[in-house]
């Protein structure tokens, strides 16, 4: 599904240039449930932006579902994002003056689906999230967990192949975080590839694969079976430190 080959990315120009990604090679198969971890400055957000076609990269190649994503026109990139990808953000990023249903329906607006139809579909997705009674509520009338569920519904409505989540539980308490992770797990169960950026180990531990970034390169990839062991090691290391 996702195939990165020696991807480089720098910010800024000339002497102030900051080399953020220093050659990323990564394969994420269809239906994977992956988390990306790393300390701040490790390049994990940049990687996620590139994966989400929200940013360009300088070198290398990125294939999304067999399509080379490179030097795309903004229009083409927008279309690809709309059709292939769903985004979930830490701060939910709902549009404050639209109610839950309208927020969920927005991606379909950009696909040219008429209002009646897209609102109907949006209600179905809200129902799946158990938010049907809140369909006409504005974002500021919803709790954090509810907001994130609205955001997830919005990311799913265009039936994407990949869900990209940037710290989806970063602004939520533990119980709600786990609820959201349950939902993401279900989505993954439906065959959608889910990629999460997180710095919380318990969240990462719920995914099938952890990609650890360090200084712009992948330092290790931990498979699900090794997770428990790794977690113990990690906590031990932290306690002794």
């Amino acid at each position, binding site marked *: 599904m996702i195939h990165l080959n020696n991807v480089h990315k720098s910010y800024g120009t000339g002497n102030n240039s900051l080399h953020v990604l220093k050659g990323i090679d990564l394969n994420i198969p269809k239906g994977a449930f992956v988390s990306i971890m790393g300390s701040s400055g490790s390049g994990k*957000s940049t990687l996620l932006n590139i994966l989400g076609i929200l940013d360009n990269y300088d070198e290398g190649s990125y294939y999304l579902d067999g399509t080379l994503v490179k030097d795309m026109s903004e*229009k083409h990139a*927008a279309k690809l*994002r709309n059709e292939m990808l769903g*985004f979930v953000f830490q701060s939910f*990023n709902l549009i404050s*003056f639209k109610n839950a249903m309208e927020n969920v329906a927005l991606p379909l*607006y950009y696909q040219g689906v*008429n209002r009646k139809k897209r609102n109907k579909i949006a209600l179905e997705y809200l129902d799946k999230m158990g938010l049907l009674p809140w369909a006409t509520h504005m974002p500021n009338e919803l709790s954090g967990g509810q907001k994130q569920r609205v955001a997830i519904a919005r990311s799913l409505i*265009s039936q994407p192949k990949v869900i990209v989540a940037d710290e989806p539980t970063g602004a939520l308490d533990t119980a709600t975080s786990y609820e959201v992770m349950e939902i993401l797990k279900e989505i993954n169960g439906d065959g959608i590839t889910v990629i999460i950026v997180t710095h919380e180990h318990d969240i990462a531990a719920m995914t099938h694969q952890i990609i650890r970034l360090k200084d712009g390169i992948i330092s290790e990839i931990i498979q699900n079976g090794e997770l428990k062991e790794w977690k113990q090691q990690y906590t031990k290391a932290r306690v002794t430190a």
Partner: protein
Amino acid sequence: MFDIDKWQEILATIKKNKMRTFLTGFSVAWGIFMLMILLGSGNGLSNGVAQNFMRDAVNAMWLWSGRTSIPYQGMKENRQIQFTNTDYDLLKDIPEIEFTSGRYFISGNRFAYGSEFGEYTAITCHPELREVESIEIASGRFINNVDIKESRKSVVLGKDIYDALFKGQEAIGEYVRINNVPFKVVGICLEGGGTRHRNAYVPVTTGQKVFNGANRLHNFALTINANSIEESKVIEEKVRAALARKHKFDPTDRAALGSYNKLENYLQTMRIFEAIKIFIWIIGAGTLIAGVVGVSNIMLIVVKERTKEIGIRKAIGATPGSVIGLILLEAILITTIAGYIGLVLGTGLMEGINLLVERQFEAAAATNNGNGDMIFRNPTVDINIAATATLLLIFAGALAGYIPAKRAARIKPIEALRDE
């Protein structure tokens, strides 16, 4: 452009940001409002002056004689030119001249009736003077051709003279003494568009006979058939040439033959008003530009404020084109609607003032025997200008929205969605 969803999207945004929209629109509404008031006032002034000109026939021309200032055909300068009745006949035969009236000046104008008397001006004239100077008859009649032919001692009194001498009594058929010569009152008149009616009119032939004028005349008042400055100038030159040939003086000698061409002056004054109108447009456009810059400014802030929202939209599939459309159409919508409100209010106010002015004019006319005096008339803006202004507004809206829209299109989702 006529995508209903797009408009719903824009209307939803506007509805959720009422205050911001109001402030944005206000500057434009104000700009157009001021433009309409300025244009309306300009029109009012122009119409008022035009009507003041209408007191006399707009195409009137006056000629008077003097002394030559240029030697001509061997004759020295400083020669007195004297009009006579033959000049009157000459002018009458020029086809471009509609009406002609000659005048012989009478010195000393003491008017007396019974024990009442006063100093007024007696103007000797032909019946045509009535057309030239737009004289209105309040009662009786004006000087007629029989008066001229028979040199009858008839007089048409101005309203003010009648009021002073007769104090409201019946005057027609009575005799007033002008310089101790009795004249029979045949009519009472009002000067067209004026407020003072202190002139009396007597037949020119009578004036010449009674006051030793022989066949001499001092000046002519006439109206010409001309529709433009050029035409009226050509006729003026023709008249001057005819008189110059007859009296043997240089046609360009303005001391020998003085002339005042009202049409020329009228059209020139109207040209000044055209210039004032252009000036008003410039000022109005300036006000409007200030409004547009205001909209542009606020739209820039709007874009900044909505950076996150635009980032979200782009992340979930909005193309740059749709983002530009969103901002541009919002700007156009706000300027057009706000501008239209300003337009309606501005023209409405001017219509209201017009109503007031007309009422005042009527009141003035009522107290002044049907002759109001106003410098300000019909201060309204016609529909074409309003339509032009509306088109200008849509254009201005597009202009105001363009830079902010471009900036919005350049927003990168990552930067917009970054958590700080």
